[in-house]
């Protein structure tokens, strides 16, 4: 189901120096909006650094108002930063005038939450729009659009109007349109937020396909961690105009550092502990309550932790909850167990399991409390 794990995905987002010629570099970018009649001065982005290596898929996740829309609009020059610089495909766009900027924009594709198709144009003509803007001739347009219709699976809808299409089909048109000028970079602005889960999955598959087949660099913004989980090689978490956490999708999921990140992760993994179980947890020990631990396993290495615990403590290990899911194509397992042992022995166990050697093998232990 998921794309195979690519070991090189980790360093696809990298230091700015080596990738200036390709991909996207956002460096020390600050964006403030001046005070208006009925609003105060707003700092939308504050000292933001972000690099996307060519061919990578990077997600920026944040709540509404966190600054992610501003960030994506800076990358195609629809907004200009108050400070800092933005380099796309080796061109520093922050220093360009409007005319040159238009040329650069023609090499950056973009898809939108509400698709933004022209209702007066057929599917074919919508996809042709960027080509018309770039001044392509009729036969050039024909040659470019027809394969794109096939790519997104809408060949027989070419003469339909957007009103006759479903949401998923509209976004396919949006994607084909974004690819029309053969851009190297695709920006996605909440592209699946208006779609149902099943359609979302299909669109994400399509995006992965064009990333693989066309080598397209994709930067997307979203407020849905599920999209990050399914699509991104790397993820940056943005909050109040700052990037508060950034790393490979797998690492961020397996060990979120920031509270906001943890909340995002919990929307996908159920907080790594499902609600029904959380409701049964108590913070204080009491008679008839046993200690609850959450064990998280990352990677493919199997570890005999449960039997080891049982053996060492000579106690029954009761499995309360367990799941294995795929994050960025890699398995990630969660196990919640309860065991009836004295406090000091439990402390020692947690210490032992938290050794650097264990962490290196991607096992983490967390005390959840006590369960009746």
């Amino acid at each position, binding site marked *: 189901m998921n794309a195979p794990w690519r070991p090189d995905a980790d360093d696809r987002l990298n230091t700015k120096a080596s990738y200036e010629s390709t991909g996207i570099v956002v460096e020390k970018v600050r964006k403030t909006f001046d005070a208006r009649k009925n609003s105060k001065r707003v700092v939308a982005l504050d000292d933001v650094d972000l690099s996307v290596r060519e061919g990578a898929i990077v997600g920026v996740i944040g709540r509404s108002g966190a600054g992610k829309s501003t960030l994506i609009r800076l990358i195609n020059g629809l907004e200009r930063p108050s400070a800092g610089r933005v380099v796309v495909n080796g061109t520093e766009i922050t220093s360009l005038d409007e005319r040159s900027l238009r040329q650069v924009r023609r090499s*950056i594709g973009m898809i939108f939450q509400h698709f933004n198709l022209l209702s007066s144009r057929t599917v074919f003509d919508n996809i042709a*729009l960027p080509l018309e803007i*770039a001044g392509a001739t009729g036969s050039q347009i024909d040659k470019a659009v027809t394969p794109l219709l096939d790519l997104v699976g809408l060949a027989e809808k070419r003469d339909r109007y957007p009103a*006759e299409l479903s949401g998923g089909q509209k976004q396919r048109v949006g994607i084909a349109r974004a690819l029309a000028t053969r851009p190297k970079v695709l920006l996605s602005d909440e592209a699946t937020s208006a779609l149902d889960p099943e359609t979302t999955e299909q669109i994400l598959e399509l995006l992965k396909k064009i990333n693989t087949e066309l080598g397209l660099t994709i930067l997307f913004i979203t407020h849905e961690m599920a999209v990050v989980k399914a699509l991104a090689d790397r993820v940056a978490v943005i909050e109040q105009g700052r990037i508060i956490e950034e790393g490979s999708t797998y690492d961020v999921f397996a060990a979120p550092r920031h509270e906001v990140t943890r909340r995002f992760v919990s929307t996908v993994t159920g907080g790594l502990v499902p609600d029904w179980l959380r409701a049964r947890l108590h913070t204080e020990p009491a008679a008839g309550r046993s200690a609850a631990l959450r064990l998280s396993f990352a990677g493919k290495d199997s570890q005999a932790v449960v039997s080891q615990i049982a053996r060492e403590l000579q106690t029954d290990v009761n499995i309360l909850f367990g799941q294995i899911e795929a994050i960025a194509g890699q398995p990630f397992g969660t196990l919640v167990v309860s065991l009836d042992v004295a406090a000091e022995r439990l402390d020692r166990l947690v210490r032992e399991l938290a050794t650097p050697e264990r962490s290196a093998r991607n096992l983490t232990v967390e005390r959840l409390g006590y369960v009746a």
Partner: protein
Amino acid sequence: MSPEILTMIAWSTLDTLWMVGLAGLLGTLIGLPLGVFLATSRQGELFASPMANRILGVVVNATRSTPFIILVVAIIPFTRLVVGTSIGTRAAIVPLTIAATPFIARIIEAAIREVDHGLIETARAFGATPLQIVRKVLLPEALPAITLALTLTLVSLLGYSAMVGAVGGGGLGDLGIRYGYQRFMPDVMLVVVLVLIVLVQGVQTLGDSLARRLDKRAKRS
């Protein structure tokens, strides 16, 4: 009714159509760019020039708030200058055009402002110039609304054209005043009114069906 009267009604109808048609056409030719400019020249818009926008807005409002019958009389010198006379069908076209232009400008402005702002952003993101955005996005997307707006204008112009009859403008209104009212021929008056009703109905039906055909937003079964 005598055949002479019937011939006069026929000619007057043609006069009215000619006046309204030409005034509508000229009004659109001038009003369309004005409307596009009004809709795109506020602060932060495609052709941002807030000062020009405000001045044009005031001029448009002033023209629109002048009662038509006063406008007709007030611009007689200008009308003479343009067409050489202030009486007859040709002369009537001048005030009709001047009345129609700001009206058309405003309704085209409204139609263009209805276009989803996201579409402008999209076109900009694909590197479109402001003129390309007007040509490829704003006008085509607003076309159904513009069609309805122009229909409305033509209907209003039919009413106005009857009014210029009062000051010797020719057409159905002129006929109604001179024969129906001043010579007390109620049958002529009745026919004039009936013809106007049919014309209005015809224009409206035509405009509606054209707008419906242009509008691709509705799902077709």
